[in-house]
């Protein structure tokens, strides 16, 4: 059950050993590059690089296939909407009423879709190779206040629990002949009310117990908090940091100076 919410894939690969802050830097840099570009080849190159990293980190093929399954519908929708809403220049392949399909808007739609896919893979590469506790620890180490990190960790921890509780409550109410399948949308939404209220009561009880447990474990003891989970920034992390910063900087310079990646199909306009 929790596997659905915990994307971490344990391994001893170079990607797993990389400092989580460096991986976060990569995600941010990749986002900057992808958002600064409108070029299909830049998107494909980023996707290929992330796939190579995932493959070398021994991330299971079914996990990669799962990301494709999750993102492909959104990618297809974005490509279709782009083509429909942005009439391209140049000769039209198809022209029906306001719809005008051209090489330009198809290429741009494809670039936008690939941008979403590449961004998703960059984020999932980070989540697949970083366990939740280290992830939260890295965010706190980067300056996120500890209470926020604790809230994030608890949200990750309780997602599967709350989902399970929702299912049990739903079962309990249906066992009392509550029908969730009949009627129009409003009637169905109303039928969920007993489940939502019971869920709310249970969540409040859990929250009350949780606050007592946190207090009993000395949260807010008034001393400087220490951390069991230590992050180690090694020389290889420094090399990757420099490489990521330099590569991103070079791309941005090329983008501004020569317009590299500005056009949908041609790398250099």
């Amino acid at each position, binding site marked *: 059950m929790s596997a659905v919410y915990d994307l971490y894939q344990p391994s001893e690969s170079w990607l797993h050993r990389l400092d989580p802050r460096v991986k976060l830097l990569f995600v941010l840099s990749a986002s900057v590059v992808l958002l600064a570009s409108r070029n299909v080849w830049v998107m494909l190159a980023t996707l290929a690089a992330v796939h190579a990293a995932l493959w070398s980190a021994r991330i299971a093929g079914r996990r990669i296939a799962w990301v494709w399954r999750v993102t492909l519908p959104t990618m297809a929708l974005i490509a279709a909407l782009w083509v429909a809403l942005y009439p391209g220049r140049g000769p039209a392949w198809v022209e029906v009423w306001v719809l005008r399909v051209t090489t330009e808007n198809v290429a741009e739609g494809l670039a936008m879709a690939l941008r979403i896919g590449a961004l998703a893979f960059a984020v999932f590469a980070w989540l697949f190779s970083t366990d939740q506790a280290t992830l939260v620890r890295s965010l706190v180490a980067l300056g996120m206040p500890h209470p926020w990190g604790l809230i994030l960790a608890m949200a*990750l921890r309780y997602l599967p629990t709350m989902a399970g509780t929702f299912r049990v409550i739903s079962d309990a109410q249906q066992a009392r002949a509550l029908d969730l399948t009949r009627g129009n949308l409003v009637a169905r939404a109303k039928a969920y009310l007993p489940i939502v209220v019971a869920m709310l009561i249970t969540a409040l009880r859990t929250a009350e117990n949780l606050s007592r447990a946190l207090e009993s474990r000395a949260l807010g003891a008034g001393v400087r908090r220490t951390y069991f989970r230590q992050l180690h920034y090694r020389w290889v992390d420094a090399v990757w940091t420099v490489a990521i910063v330099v590569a991103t900087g070079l791309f941005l310079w090329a983008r501004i100076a020569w317009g590299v990646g500005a056009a949908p199909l041609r790398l250099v306009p």
Partner: protein
Amino acid sequence: MSAVEIDNLRYAYPPLWAGGASVEVLRGLSLTVERGEFLALMGPTGVGKSTLLMALNGIVPQSTGGVISGRVTVLGADSRGTPVAELARRVGIVYQDAESQLFSTTVEDEVAFGPENLGVDPREIAERVAWALDVVDMAAHRGRAPSQLSGGQKQRVAIAATLAMLPEVLVLDEPTAALDPLGQREVLAVVEKLCSERRATIIMASHDAEQVAEFADRVAVMVEGRIARADEPLRVFEDAELLACAGLAAPQVCEVALGLNRRLGTRYSFATLDAAAEALGEEAAGSGVRVPGRMGCRLQAPGYTGVLTPSPRTRGEPQYSGARVRGEGSLTPSPRTRGEGRGEGSSGARVRGETPPSIRVEALTHQYDEMSTALNGIDLTIGDNAYLAIIGQNGSGKTTLVKHFNGLLKPGSGHVWVEGVDTRTTSVGRLARRVGYVFQNPDHQIFGATVREEVGFGPRNLGLSPAEVRERTDEALAAFDLTAHAEAPPAVLGYGLRRKVSLAAVFAMRPHILILDEPTAGMDARSTADLMARVDAMHRAGHTIILVTHDMRLAAEHCHQVLVMHEGRALAYGPTREVFCRSDDLALAQLAPPQAGQLARRLELQGMPCDVLTTDEFVAAYAALGAATQGGQP
């Protein structure tokens, strides 16, 4: 200096709603706990045990608010004036609900959380984490997510997380109440280790008298917000007047001692299984009761006729047949048991096949995901008016099985028929007319603004007229003594009352088949007896009752058939006595018969029949054994 000193403690919670009255819980309570002592705290549900325990680490009143007077001193610190976080260094508390006290993403982060908050050096935290996980035998699971652990493992991690803060006093608030027998044993093994090897000061609230007798140095019994008596377990459990006043049960072996003393004029005095076996074993051996060469399971003592003292609960139960196990083959109880039905006790057996069985299951398989099979080829027939207990560890498939009975789950393969209706093609709503399902946690179904609205919810969903809904609601409220609470919000009632509301809500739908999932978990003996009396009455009125339970004594004393589930399979199914005699199957499922049965087995070499289940049966069998050996009547 004592570890804990409480003097004339009074405490009232703030009003539950605006304009309401304060809820007084503790009423002049005084208690002292010495260093290295294991004190068990017992008392009826809602008497204030958890409140008292939370007063030890300052949660009461610092977090809860309310009005407090009197003095609570823990290792010299006043719990009212010392911040909770500061008291946490001295008092570690483990709550009943494991789920809401494990909030980290991995086990080791959970254990490290307390020391981190106390500013302990990271290297020392690593040492403490390793040590605490080693103490609770969870070192192999340090990288796992708490949500992936079993109930027993979660509680062990919660104990480790508390131990890592190196508290001098460990407080356990019913740590085993929500666990299966295996989980209970795991947690108690840790408690035993802490007691015997580390001489830790432990204060543990518990409803389980057998656990308490086994481990505690002293028992403090709470009645009406005060300590009525604090003494050695044996003395407390022999104080029948006190137990009756507090609504508590003694360990079953204490009842055996009392029964033997009354019947035989002896002066037995024991509270644990070991002490009872030693006392009765020596006595039996000394009086020549031993049966040389008889090593096998003896099923019937001379002069012992099985159910010796028929009572309402055993009316209709087939007389003891003497067969050790029923025949192999499909999981259908023997014809004698199947014939047991409404009125059979007085009007004779129903001819087999005359009316359809309540539930028939054929080759049922169910998978939640591709990785594991929750149910694997179950074949089962549950007769009309059966009173069945389903037992087994968590994850054995009990709940998955019963969810097929009301259509919440549809068979992956195979079939389930309920009163002849195929559940695969029938909606949950339609099946709810026939099958009532009371979930383990009453909070999972309570949502109404009033108890009346809550109880009337099911009948309204059945499409009944307002007049009939009102009639059924009133009847259910009266049947469960809830009429006085009809206009109260159910969510703010005590646990025992909320449990009654959940039962009344299903009762009002008048289902012929009633499924109860762990109905007595976390309830005291009096509340349990009260609830089971109502369930027994429903059975006598002709309903089919299916009880999912971890309480073997409850199953033995109330149910006529038992189904043992293990790893998704029906390991054993038959009359209660026969199933509890199948020691190999019980051992495989990591279960054990009630204490009287275990004691009888320990005395097997002395000639005791091993199919004893209840206190009365044990006393009768033991008396008969003595009489047969000495050639006289007991």
